[in-house]
């Protein structure tokens, strides 16, 4: 980047004209063939009636028109949106509180930080199966609820409780990840601000709201953007807890589950699943823009 190096690098280029591309080639090839080409072919396929074993032909907007009349699509869209609304506020606030709890260097704190990160490390399948067992009609959570006199709850049999349980699992698994991001941000908050506020007589809560929160606000927006995009594309948690067909009468199906279900297998409707994917792209981009715009508006 720096200009003093320009003469040297110019000579290098003359010496080895092809090698820069050799360096970049493996990466460009993989990304091109398996990310960018599939992205473009998703867009193209969404206008065709392509199936797994049939090439398909151009059908215009027929797939998108069909989406509008597909009950499953609306259920998937509803659940994916509910997922964002349920998960994102929790993942913006709770990891910040957790980061405040583990930031101070007290004895044993590295152990706690690592331990809180364990759910992030564990694969989603392990996490899903652990919670299926915990939330089972006869599982640990219900045994504890019964022991305190609440009685058993059908976490995995009721449509809404199932969705909320999956959200809780997503939050549980994400806490540690966002905690680390907040820790990095908190390290950059100048301590003088806190001291000044303390001298002015601000209590702990007041200092949290008027010093800490403004200082990590852009990180909160980042966490909001990351978690909302991830929440909208939720697949594994719900798939594992509700089963491949999406819970009672498929009422817990999410959009990506629908993509997977309609697009795969020998009779997979690749064209229709691509149209669903295009909706996933569109909403993802919209969510990012929404969060980033909220950021700019607040800042000004």
């Amino acid at each position, binding site marked *: 980047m720096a200009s003093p*190096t320009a003469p*040297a690098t110019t000579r290098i280029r003359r*010496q*080895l004209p092809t090698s*820069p*591309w050799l*360096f*970049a080639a*493996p*990466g*460009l090839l*993989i990304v091109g063939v*398996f*990310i960018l*080409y*599939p*992205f473009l*072919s998703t867009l193209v*396929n969404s206008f065709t009636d392509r199936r797994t074993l049939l090439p398909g032909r151009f059908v215009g907007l027929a797939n998108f028109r069909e989406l509008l009349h597909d009950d499953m699509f609306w259920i998937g869209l509803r659940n994916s949106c509910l997922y964002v609304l349920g998960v994102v506020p929790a993942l913006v606030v709770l990891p910040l509180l957790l980061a405040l*709890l583990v930031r*101070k260097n*007290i*004895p*044993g704190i590295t152990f*706690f930080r690592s*331990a*809180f*990160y*364990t759910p992030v*490390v*564990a*694969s989603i*399948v*392990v996490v899903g*199966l*652990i*919670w*299926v*067992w*915990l939330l089972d009609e*006869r599982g*640990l959570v219900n*045994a*504890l609820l019964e*022991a305190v006199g609440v009685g058993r709850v059908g976490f995995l049999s009721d449509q809404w409780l199932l969705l909320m349980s999956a959200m809780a699992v997503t939050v549980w698994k994400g806490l540690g990840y966002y905690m*680390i991001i907040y820790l*990095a*941000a908190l390290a950059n908050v100048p*301590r003088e601000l806190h*001291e000044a506020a*303390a001298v002015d007589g601000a209590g702990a809560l007041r200092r949290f709201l008027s010093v800490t929160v403004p200082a990590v606000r852009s990180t909160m927006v980042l966490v909001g953007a990351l978690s909302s995009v991830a929440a909208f*594309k939720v*697949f594994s948690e719900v798939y594992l807890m509700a089963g491949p067909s999406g819970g009672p009468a498929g009422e817990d199906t999410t959009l990506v589950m629908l*993509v997977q279900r309609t*697009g795969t297998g020998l009779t997979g409707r690749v064209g229709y*699943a691509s149209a669903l*994917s*295009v909706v*996933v792209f569109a909403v*993802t981009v919209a969510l990012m823009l929404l969060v980033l715009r909220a950021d700019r508006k607040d800042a000004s």
Partner: protein
Amino acid sequence: MSVLDRARPAPGRAAARTPRGPRFADEHGRRLRGWELALRYLLLLAVLALTVGPFLWQLSTSLKGPTEDIYSSPPSFLPGHPTLHNYERVAETIPVWDYALNSLKVAGANVVTNCVGSALAGYALARLRYRGRKAATLVFVLAMLVPVEGIIIAQFTTMRELGLNNTLIGVVLPGCVSALNVLLMRNAFLSLPHEIDEAAYVDGADVWQRFLRIALPSVKGTLAVVAIFAFMGAWDDFLWPLIVLSDPSRFTLTIGLNYLHGTFANDERLVAAGTIIAVAPLIALFACLQRYFFRGVGEGAVKG
């Protein structure tokens, strides 16, 4: 009780750190530190129970024998007669060690390809000058922004056109050089001083020598982060192997576990043993490498 045990020795050590400690020690002074620390440890232990407890419960379930009541109320947290029998039975029910080996192959290949591929490409983006460099960078940035969930069907059809469906190579390929890793490596190479490169050039080192002997050893930290994330990402992945693999003999561990759960849902001891087999190596790996790990996550977040 353990709270007090932990809290009591703390004030002495904390006092020594007070001058450079964060705000809590500075503001509250000596009188409050005792109960504040106790409260902190109480909260820490509560969160610990919530985050690690479920894993321990799963471990406990996997060790309970066939005659033990795993549905007892109130629940018993320690197995009455601990046994490894369930682990043997998992292996009899599904080829769990083959699945683990498949996962290991996939994860190992992913580590190698990601380290090599993203180091090479990152170096090309950061340290070499040529026409089209900006375009190459843009390709990786765009690729990073594409949500994998949205292109998964097209990836599947691409893989089928290449005749690689239902193979482990097919599982590895789409993520074998991730755009995010390329950009991470690019950032690492960018932060190296140019003077070293120039000196080596004057000494007659060609581009490969400068890459292998000078640049690469200086970014070992980032390379370790890439390796860890590549391993975990491949070991933990679920959606893509679920779509690309159809033959049970080629399943990876995550897909095999889902299969185990679907087929033998009535015996939680087996499922529990299977999940412990899947998660134990990762927790061990993580415990050894957590220092690099946290640095990597922090850096990644800051650099966006």
